[in-house]
């Protein structure tokens, strides 16, 4: 499938849109106006989710999760969806570039560029310096990995391949090796456990495989009559993951370790039931003999009673799971914490079901920071003649104190395969820009047993080549056809696919086609349970060096965000415009500081802070926000780019600049001591582009909650929720002046389950992509002109360190306040209950927005445009709005129409589940349910009767068709 179509480079230059030529002979599989979907694999992070790329008339206009894929099951995070902005990024290299003597990049032809590379290798081998070649790549597996290794071997340096992943979880891997004897990362099954404690593992944001874990988390936390499974988060910051916990235990960075040890201590002291044998218990007792609960409590500042309660609940569970972040970048003592957490996982034998070492993650293949350190040393000592870099940006993602820039600068020849300019590529002498993954053939295996295939879902946008093709062609040139017999990388991939099945290429044609259609090859998930056997005897629980406690200053924690991962997402406008889940800030870095600390230090929002650690300093604006405990600062990782294109550059700041130049001797990861920093207020106030008007709800009860006991009681008593359904029966002459609307066949309705919402913002980006919502940039966000049709509103709790989210979109009210005030009927109530905004009719009085209590209408303050070729992403089914026009959520009316046409062709009505909206489609936690309220069997009809159902601002009698389900209040964590 898709070969002919995908290799036809339609619309590959922006000029082609100026003149429209019909095909003389139309490509077979392109039907104008009809989308083709190509299954491929997301390469925005090593999680390797399955993608479906929607190709309309030769261009990918949207990517969605592949429903068949075992990792993401049809769901996709914001980053995955923004891969389109990697594809269409206006700052991509338009073709090969060579750096001239003046340090500028000049265009060069591919033939010339490949010749330069070949010449260099010839020169190196002539001098007998083959060993002085290194190839630095991101995490690759499968054919590409084999090719790189083979190529290097042919060139004479078989050890030259260094896989560099900024987040490679050295602490976790090392702890797994020590405790379970396996240097690797298992697949976790959060959905199979019944008590979860996370030691700063942000598994809903970036940790290992966030979409998969968000899905599992949603099913783990599903509200049932007996409540939900408890989740405790221990960490230095109220992160998105922490805010989803029943209880956030704030600790200083690295003190998660102490809490984990405290739990072990309680389990031993209180003689709690466990599956540990007598010997293991005794062994653990002896290992922990130097640790006492009161000391732990004193050092960590966590109440003894609280540790005791959590430990009791943990031990009482059948399958309790403890996750430690194990990521040296994300906090001190990553290894030690993972060690203690692994022991906790061994307490109950049932936990084995949730930790699957039989299909280890490919993260285990990644090099460790110490490998990079060694490489840097080699480079600095002049030991390298040729460095090739593909899919890695160490200059940005390693601490400034490592001086990676200087190291790379001392290499005589640096070749970058980067598709876009980044900090590392600026140092390249030769740039051979690669296809982005959406334009490439390839395979990637996120863990054993799953191989995702990548196929080009459209022709190349720029004059780029597959790095595999470049390697093969240069290999042919240097070592002859015999050593590199493949025509191109595709052929190699195809042969390697066949070889994996131990068959010939011809024999595997059917399975290849099927694999391409499915997006890859995978087996059924493992069903059996292994007992984990922690090898306690080998463990020593070190008393941590608490840094210099006399060192004054504030604690600092750096954290990866769901938008930017390690920073590679920062050049995607959608991700920059997506408000950070907790701070709700767009476009830019910041320093989170507790409002009390801020007022003590007389720091106001936006004050530029000069943050200095012993190893470096950064400048970033202060953001007083109750997401950190007093005395702790938090800085997101991923901003602070200097040469990463127009969308990323100049936004403050990279917290890695505060890190030491060492590696951790235990785990081989980055050294991460407890960072104490001093701050100095600079005489400058930067505006912060946050989208929230207030931290709190101010008693408005927009997010409503109920206790599990009330929920249970309501269920048993059959209590109906008190809502005004957006149907004629929701009207009451007592309070309604106008008669009800009549509906024809459908009344579209959405149910939003607030108890499931994790706040990740995937729905927001899906909406941007589906509906051509404009990105307005920092300056306009500051002025309150962001255009998001759907926003995930964050509210902190006024009386507790907790936060919750409220996805807010047009409520498609039955009695819509916006409809009655428009003088020209631009907001129009359709026969299917939709509140349609007729763009062509709107002349911009903005009265609708004024009268809209939900404030979900967005006005086009300008004619917002997109720099080419970002405009190639636009969905042709949705109008692009001009200045002066109001717009808002349409319930994806284009999808409704498509579904209706489809159903009509089949001679029936649209059925429940035929289609859904873009937000509902992508939500990893299944927050949204969309359907027809006139169909009594539809899921929405059933959910509307849920005792948790309510309408936001229902007292205004707007009768919204977006029905919310109340959040269940967390149950107190008592013994």
């Amino acid at each position: 499938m898709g070969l002919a179509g995908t290799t036809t480079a339609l619309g590959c230059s922006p000029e082609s849109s100026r003149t429209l030529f019909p095909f003389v002979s139309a490509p077979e599989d392109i039907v104008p106006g009809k989308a083709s979907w190509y299954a491929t694999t997301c390469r925005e992070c090593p999680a390797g989710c399955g993608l479906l790329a929607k190709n309309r008339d030769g261009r990918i206009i949207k990517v969605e999760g592949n429903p068949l894929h075992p990792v993401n099951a049809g769901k996709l995070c914001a980053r995955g969806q923004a891969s389109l902005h990697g594809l269409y990024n206006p700052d991509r290299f338009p073709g090969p570039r060579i750096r001239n003597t003046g340090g500028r990049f000049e265009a060069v032809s591919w033939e010339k560029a490949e010749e330069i590379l070949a010449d260099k290798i010839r020169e190196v081998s002539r001098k007998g310096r083959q060993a002085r070649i290194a190839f630095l790549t991101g995490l690759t597996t499968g054919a590409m990995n084999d090719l790189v290794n083979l190529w290097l071997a042919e060139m004479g340096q078989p050890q030259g391949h260094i896989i560099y992943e900024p987040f490679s979880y050295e602490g976790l891997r090392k702890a797994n090796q020590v405790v379970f004897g396996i240097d690797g990362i298992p697949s976790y099954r959060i959905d199979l456990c019944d008590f979860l404690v996370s030691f700063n593992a942000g598994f809903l944001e970036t940790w290992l495989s966030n979409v998969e874990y968000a899905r599992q988390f949603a099913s783990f936390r599903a509200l049932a009559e007996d409540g939900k499974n408890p989740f405790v988060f221990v960490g230095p910051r109220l992160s998105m993951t922490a805010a989803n916990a029943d209880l956030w235990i704030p600790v200083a960075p690295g003190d998660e370790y102490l809490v984990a040890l405290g739990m072990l201590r309680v389990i031993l002291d209180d003689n709690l039931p466990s599956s540990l044998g007598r010997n293991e218990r005794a062994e653990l007792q002896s290992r922990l003999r130097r640790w006492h609960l009161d000391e732990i409590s004193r050092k960590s500042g966590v109440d003894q009673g609280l540790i005791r309660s959590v430990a009791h609940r943990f031990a009482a569970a059948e399958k309790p799971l403890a996750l430690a972040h194990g990521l040296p970048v994300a906090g001190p003592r990553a290894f030690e914490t993972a060690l203690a957490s692994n022991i906790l996982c061994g307490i109950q034998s049932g936990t084995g079901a949730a930790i699957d070492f039989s299909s280890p993650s490919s993260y285990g293949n990644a090099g460790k920071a110490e490998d990079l350190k060694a490489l840097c040393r080699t480079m600095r000592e002049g030991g390298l003649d040729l460095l090739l870099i593909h899919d890695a940006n160490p200059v940005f993602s390693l601490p400034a104190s490592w001086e990676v820039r200087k190291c790379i600068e001392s290499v005589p020849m640096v070749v970058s395969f980067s598709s876009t300019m980044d900090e590392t590529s600026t140092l390249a002498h030769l740039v051979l820009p690669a296809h982005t993954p959406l334009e490439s053939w390839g395979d990637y295996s996120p863990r054993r047993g799953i191989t995702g295939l990548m196929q080009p879902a459209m022709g190349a946008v720029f004059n780029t080549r597959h790095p595999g093709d470049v390697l093969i062609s240069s290999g042919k040139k240097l070592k002859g056809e015999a050593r590199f017999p493949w025509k191109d990388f595709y052929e190699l991939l195809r042969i390697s696919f066949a070889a994996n099945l131990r068959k010939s290429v011809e024999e595997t044609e059917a399975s290849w086609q099927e694999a391409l259609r499915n997006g890859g090859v995978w087996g059924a998930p493992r069903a059996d349970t292994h007992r984990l056997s922690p090898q306690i005897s080998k463990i020593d629980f070190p008393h941590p060096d608490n840094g210099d406690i006399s060192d004054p200053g504030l604690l600092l924690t750096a954290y990866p965000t769901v938008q930017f991962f390690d920073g590679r997402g920062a050049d995607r406008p959608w991700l920059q415009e997506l408000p950070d889940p907790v701070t709700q800030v767009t476009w830019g870095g910041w320093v989170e500081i507790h409002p009390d600390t801020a007022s003590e230090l007389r720091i106001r929002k936006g004050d530029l802070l000069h943050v200095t650690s012993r190893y470096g300093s950064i400048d970033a604006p202060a953001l007083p926000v109750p997401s950190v405990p007093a005395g702790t600062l938090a800085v997101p990782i991923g901003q602070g780019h200097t040469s990463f294109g127009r969308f990323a550059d100049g936004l403050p700041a990279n917290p890695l600049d505060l890190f030491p130049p060492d590696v951790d001797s235990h785990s081989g990861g980055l050294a991460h001591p407890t960072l104490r920093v001093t701050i100095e207020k600079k005489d400058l106030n930067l505006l912060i582009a946050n989208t929230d008007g207030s931290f709190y709800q101010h008693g408005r009860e927009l997010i409503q909650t109920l206790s599990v006991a009330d929920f249970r009681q309501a269920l048993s008593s059959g209590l109906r929720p008190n809502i005004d359904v957006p149907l004629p029966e929701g009207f009451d002459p007592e309070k309604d002046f106008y008669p009800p609307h009549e509906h024809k066949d459908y009344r579209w309705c959405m149910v939003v389950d607030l108890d499931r919402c994790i706040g990740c913002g995937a729905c927001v980006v899906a909406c941007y992509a589906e509906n051509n919502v404009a990105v307005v940039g920092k300056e306009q966000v500051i002025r309150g002109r962001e255009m998001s049709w759907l926003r995930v509103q964050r509210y902190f709790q006024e009386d507790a360190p907790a936060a919750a989210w409220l996805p807010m979109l047009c409520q498609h009210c039955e009695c819509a306040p916006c409809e009655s005030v428009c003088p020209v009927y631009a907001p129009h109530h359709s026969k299917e209950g939709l509140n349609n905004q007729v763009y062509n009719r709107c002349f911009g009085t903005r009265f609708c927005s004024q009268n809209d209590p939900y404030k979900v209408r967005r006005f086009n303050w300008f004619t917002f445009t997109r720099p080419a070729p970002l405009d190639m992403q636009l969905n042709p089914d949705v109008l692009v709005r001009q200045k002066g026009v109001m717009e808002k959520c349409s319930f994806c009316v284009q999808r409704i129409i498509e579904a209706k046409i489809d159903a009509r062709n089949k001679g029936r009505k649209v059925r429940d589940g035929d289609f859904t909206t873009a937000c509902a489609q992508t939500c990893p936690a299944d927050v949204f349910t969309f359907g027809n309220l006139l169909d009594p069997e539809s899921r929405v009809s059933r959910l509307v009767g849920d005792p948790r159902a309510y309408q936001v601002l229902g007292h205004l009698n707007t009768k919204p068709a977006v029905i919310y389900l109340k959040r269940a209040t967390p149950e107190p964590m008592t013994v």
Partner: protein
Amino acid sequence: MDTLTYSKINQDVLRTLDPPDRTYVRLVAVLFAGIVMGALCWAYQIRTGMGVAGIKHPVAWGVYLVSFVFWVGIAHSGTLISAILYLFRASWRTSIARSAEAMTVFAVATAGLFPLIHLGRVWIVYWILPYPNQRNLWPNFQSPLVFDVIAISTYLTVSFLFWYTGLLPDLAVVRDNSKGIRRRIYGILSLGWTGTHIRWRHHGTAYLFFAALATPLVVSVHSVVSWDFALGIVPGWHSTIFAPYFVAGAIHSGLAMVITLLIPLRHIYRFEHIITMRILENLAKTIILTGLIVAYAYGVEFFIAWYGGNIVERDTFIWRAVGYYAPEFWMMIVFNTIVPLAFLFKKYRTSLTSLFVICILVNIGMWCERYVIILSSVAHEFDPYSWGIYRPTWVELGIVTGSFCLFFFLFMLFVKFLPSVSITEVKEALPPPTRQYEEHPRCSD
């Protein structure tokens, strides 16, 4: 008025139409430049998008609608003075009725620009009119903005006709006292007024009818304008007292504007014997009344916000008093309700300085009132996530300044080209001429 005679009135009023001096020309030129500046700002806004203004999410209405309501409000006392006081036979109104009525026409015309300036796509503004079209698309008669169009256009038409009807005999006076092209122009404008008995009878009847027609409009227009807000569900707008509250406020600001205009007019053209201190004093007394009504409305708003028990409503009003717009709020309270109380003392009602200063303050206060009502309500609405602050930009300030220039420009032209005091009505108040006045020259009536 003892010294006044028919001829003296003619002379005094016609003197204002003499070729202007240099100061006048300079002033008009400056005002015209201001209009051009405002127009350029508007052109820039149309070309670039509404984003050049400070309006934003959630405050989508800014100083344009503030100015709209302000100018509509100004318009009110013109009609109050010329029509209502006419019907009530308050004879002290005669000398100021003309300029008050002119002020009404110009203020409504200026006000009418703002809904256009405020539109996102002004080039299709005619869609709001109920004109027959193939698509059978009609405006939404539920929308207060459609009420507005009807109310404002009716008001503009009626007040213009009322004003023009009153002008007719005076235009004839000008015609009869001029020569050449000027005589022709005023001849056309005076519609061939001959001053026969039957003309006078028709004129009197028409004037009375227009007065009767304009009177309910005083109430209705600003009630309708208030419904732009009161029919919304926005806390701070959604209130049944809005119609009378706005009408009182409109008259309050209108009276202040009349005095603001009359004092310089009277001084420049030496109208002291026509626009007497008694008239100004009467206006000042009325301002005390309207100020008290406005104060009552402010009080009721706060009382209801507390008594209603709606936390959103309550927070809105607390925020008005202590939040971002608190300076404007307190200016509104002090200037509109407390400062005018000074008129209780005769000393302040009869001093031109204090009259002028207090009326300027009331004008500022009333502008602030609209600013506070329109902005602070949506800025601090139901959903705290969507709270936001609005500040006007230079484009908005340029356009608003341009609108003031336009208003004063029109008024300046009016005093130079049309009789700014009603010659006929002032004469009516005089004892009819008897034989002792045989000597006086021919006059038109």
